[in-house]
């Protein structure tokens, strides 16, 4: 069976190569050699092409066989099996896995066939921050959280930390908005013994367009949408044309949420912002209430990009806690456990003294 995956190995010592965000180069852990992305692209061009062709061939075979019987290499759980070119071990991967590392020899591996045709990303945003930065960010994240159980931070061990290139759709589009408001302008004055309030009522209409660029929506069902939204924004100035040479040392998935499905979220966000911006132009009124609105972003254009995310998971009291860090900016988010003991301690610690002070003020003068 032709080799479908590529190990990026050091041309000097055949040690595993990793992309290092700080230097922006691929570095060898063993001999310390480093290579630019272009150098590695040139070196592995033929290998990747062969692996990609093998991958496509395998996919075609699978498809043909699947028509007759259940896939031979694609089990009921949707796993794919690859053979590590370095040690020959079998790698069981998800259908969407595009980059991983061999659990036996540790060599970073890329599956070029996953990026064939329409699956090929337009851009990749390289990691800038490394694993140590992610660990430090998590520790820092715990600070100042008054309700965090002490045992969680003291005994906490990061179970897993992985750098993942998450598939994102970046949507461009123009929003057309036509909104009608019922607005009022209120004027009050006194006349004799009376306060007169005059309210002028207006029929206000605003219509216009707004352009949006690269609204992200993750294209992976594995990634919680709230987490991916919360680690925004990414600095798109550093986007690179896609190359697999940025992937070694990290995990990468291809999308499993098509652009058409992901666009709903981007359009909803763009429309909400547009309605607010358009509404902001109706100034000089005491109240301005939308009565009808037509806001839409027709035919958003999508670009496909891999964006860097560090995923950290911890386990405490039998429950998993997942954190995500923007691999470019270091913004870290995640949900933490709440110590109910600390919650009530704070609650009564505030309520009791305050009650005492109020009692002294309100009853002391009696």
């Amino acid at each position, binding site marked *: 069976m032709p080799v479908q995956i590529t190990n990026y190995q050091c041309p000097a010592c055949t040690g595993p190569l990793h992309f290092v965000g700080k230097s922006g180069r691929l570095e060898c852990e063993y001999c310390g050699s480093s290579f630019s992305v272009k150098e590695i692209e040139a070196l592995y061009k033929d290998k990747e092409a062969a692996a990609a062709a093998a991958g496509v061939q395998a996919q075609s075979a699978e498809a043909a066989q699947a028509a007759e019987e259940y896939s031979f290499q694609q089990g009921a759980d949707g796993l794919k099996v690859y053979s590590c070119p370095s040690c020959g071990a079998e790698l069981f991967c998800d259908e969407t896995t595009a980059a991983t590392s061999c659990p036996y020899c540790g060599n970073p591996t890329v599956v070029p066939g996953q990026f064939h045709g329409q699956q090929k990303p337009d851009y990749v945003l390289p990691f800038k921050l490394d694993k140590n930065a992610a660990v430090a960010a998590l520790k820092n994240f715990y600070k*100042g*959280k*008054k*309700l965090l159980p002490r045992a969680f931070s003291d005994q906490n061990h990061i179970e897993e930390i992985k750098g993942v290139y998450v598939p994102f759709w970046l949507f461009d589009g123009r929003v057309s908005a036509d909104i009608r408001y019922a*607005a009022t302008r209120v004027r009050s004055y*006194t*006349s004799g*013994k*009376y*306060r007169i*309030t*005059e*309210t*002028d*009522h*207006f*029929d*206000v*209409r*605003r*219509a*216009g*367009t*707004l*352009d*949006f660029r*690269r*609204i992200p929506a993750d294209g992976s069902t594995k990634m*919680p949408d*709230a*987490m991916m*939204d*919360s680690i*925004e*924004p990414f600095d798109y100035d550093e986007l690179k044309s896609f190359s697999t040479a940025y992937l070694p040392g990290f995990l990468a998935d291809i999308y499993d949420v098509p652009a058409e499905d992901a666009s709903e979220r*981007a359009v909803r*966000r*763009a429309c*909400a*912002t547009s309605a607010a*911006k*358009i509404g902001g*132009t*109706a100034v000089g009124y005491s109240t301005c209430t939308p009565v009808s609105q037509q806001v839409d972003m027709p035919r958003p254009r999508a670009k496909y990009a891999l964006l860097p995310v560090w995923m950290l998971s911890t386990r405490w009291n039998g429950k998993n806690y997942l954190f*995500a860090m923007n691999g470019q900016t270091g913004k870290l*988010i*995640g*949900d*933490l*456990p709440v110590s109910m003991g600390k*919650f009530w301690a*704070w*609650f009564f610690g*505030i*309520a*009791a003294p*305050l*009650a005492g002070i*109020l009692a002294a003020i309100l*009853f002391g003068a009696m």
Partner: protein
Amino acid sequence: MKKRLFSLVLILLLLAALLPAAFAEQSAAEETEAPVFPYVLDQAGLLSDSQRQTLEEKAAALSEQHQCSLYVVTVEDYTQYNYNIVTATQGIFNYYHLGWGDGQDGVILLLSMKERDFDLDGHGSKGETICGYESRWLIEDEFLDNFRNNDWYGGFKDYLDVCDKQLTKLENGEDITAGADIITGPDGLDYHSYNNPYASTERSILPRLLVVIFVPLVVALIVCMSLKGQMKTAREATGADEYLVPQSMKLNVQEDRFTHRTRTQTLIETDSNHRSGGGGGGGSSFHSGGGFSGSSGKF
């Protein structure tokens, strides 16, 4: 002297405007005397004929029983007769020589509908006593709740009943101020506990107790929920402000069309109208002098 003349002119105006019925009852021989004044004079038209008749009979019977006349007068706007409702009421009483016997014992309740003012005045030993500083609250309490609900007949009936009750107590030598709970507010005015706006801060423990209990709980809850909110940081985005291309907003339509104007007017609460009642539920002011004692306010 000028004031007296002024009052006299105004009272004459009142006579001309209000009392055609009273004039009608006058005989030619009595033309030089003041007209007979009914016990119930409903110039504002608040009562039906039968209600007015019932009250008239009741007032006449009680007046005779206690030898203290009980009057009810309603007008549209007392300012047509006098600048002050108390002066207007007392002017009517004096001009028509109202009251029972030589001592002119009597109680008169005047309602002015334009701004919902009332005045209660007692004259003579009995009238002044039951409309005294403390006992007048007991009479007010009986009719004000009805008037606030536009129950005119019920209010006048309660007024006559409570006058009957107070006069009976007075005749029996009982304490006519029992149950009148007077409190002096921080503004220096006296309030009945029933409608004292300062009762909550002066005497009642319950509201303060509620403040002591609930304010700390609410503050603590807000702080703790804020701390809890810090523990959950992953939220789906709702807007896309960061991705809006700068200066890209283009307005094609910008219409602002005036449709109509609405106008409301509200009576301004001032110290003066507050002191004379302060609107629904407010206190009333006490007055005494010139052979009268009583109170006035809003209903």
